[in-house]
């Protein structure tokens, strides 16, 4: 089980959290003018990268808030957690 750092509550067990997918995916503000391909890209296509990824978590069984984190998808180690709206930290070298 992962140990996850909530920027508001500190370190808590993974069971308190819900994973919410890739981070920094802004919902297009102009859906009516997007092509089908652009809309599909937003809805379904993902990096699914092996390495450092930026992802969204929600502390559902705690403060209830969303935040972002930087995690490595091979080792599952976290490098950082940061609040929504903050710039993402650089991944460790």
């Amino acid at each position, binding site marked *: *089980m*992962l140990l996850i750092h909530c920027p508001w509550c500190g370190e808590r067990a*993974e*069971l308190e959290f*819900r*994973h919410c*997918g890739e981070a920094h995916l802004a919902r297009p503000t102009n859906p009516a003018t997007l092509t*089908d*391909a652009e809309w*599909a*890209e937003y*809805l*379904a*296509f*993902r*990096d*699914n*990268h*092996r390495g450092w*990824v930026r*992802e969204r978590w929600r502390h559902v069984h705690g403060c209830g808030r969303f935040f972002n984190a930087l*995690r490595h*998808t*091979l*080792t*599952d180690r976290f490098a950082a957690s940061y609040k929504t709206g903050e710039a993402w930290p650089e991944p460790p070298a």
Partner: protein
Amino acid sequence: MSGFSAVRLLREALRGQTGWGQQWRSPDQPQAAYDVVIIGGGGHGLATAYYLAKGHRVGRIAVLEKGWIGGGNTGRNTTIIRSNYLFPESAALYDHAVQLWEGLSQELNYNVMFSPRGVLMLAHNVHDEQSFRRHVHANRLAGVDNEWLDAEACRAFCPPLDIHQRRYPVLGGALQRRGGVARHDAVAWGYARAASALGVDIIQNCEVTGITRANDGAVTGLSTSKGQIRAGKVGVVAAGSTSLVMAMAGVRMPLESFPLQALVSEPVKPVFPCVVMSNTVHAYISQSDKGELVIGAGTDQYPSYSQAGGVHILSHTLEAICELFPMFRRMRMLRSWGGIVDTTSDRSPIIGLTPVPGLFVNCGWGTGGFKATPGSGHVFAATIARAEPHPIAAPFSLGRFTTGRLIDEAAAAAVAH
């Protein structure tokens, strides 16, 4: 390689089993060029190569596998086979596979131990019951066997099941009698042996690291840990690693890769006559011919390539198994493991062409592709050979995420499969 037969078994029994040779050729080095290269030596990749060599004149074929064949999800899965999916497109695809399973040992001259002992899916609440009854009706219209059993009938079919416990009450279940299990390694080995006999090169310990393309974008070859290989057509069948391989050709995929775990108990005498799945509590169970209970758990909630999921996922499944089958409470577990499954948002696979000429993909089988192995290989081989989707594969195109014609088995079952 000579065929297996009763006469040969007898002869080998008298000769101290000394005459069994290597079952398939595994050349250490690839040739400089192939007409078709399959990336990924799991069941789906090997089946694709076999049906290509058997049914289509495409020239030289190779399967490149970064580890050993069957070492991916093929060798890590709980081997449940069934075809009672909701939508006609899925029922056609998975039932095509079940029909091939029924004759596969004869077809390959290799015992894949297909055992249609019946797959029972338990309903624990009104939603489950309504959803399963809907599946039963849809399947009957599609000509796929599936029947509703009330709770008593479930217990009669699977005596270890406790239908009166309070935690997960059993309201009934959907039973597919033609469903069952097969031996996963034998499926990889049987296809490898039969493909090799037809001239397919199976190159193990050969990782694909790059895809080379011509000025017009078409695939021309591959960079691998065993050097450059020229290729006319390339089929990517890399399960959890598909996004990584497709990225080598600059193609993004509608996939996320998650760890999925399974575990086996100590071996015991035959105690469990069928396969039972409980989607609601994420527990799947059958007994192998070796006597181990084979138990499937759920996926982790986050994408990962770690091939090791959280322990709490396993214990959640074991809690459910112990509630449903109290007789297993004192059973010891022998080992657990994880595989990386590639899931799509509609929980249906992707089989077909890609935006890159000469590059084909077969992926997105997620938590439930073993059952489809023969059918998937069969329709993907035809798709590669003709460079146009086989009719059964056509609805499962990559393009469906753009057109919106999803085959939403995720919403239909609301669970893994």
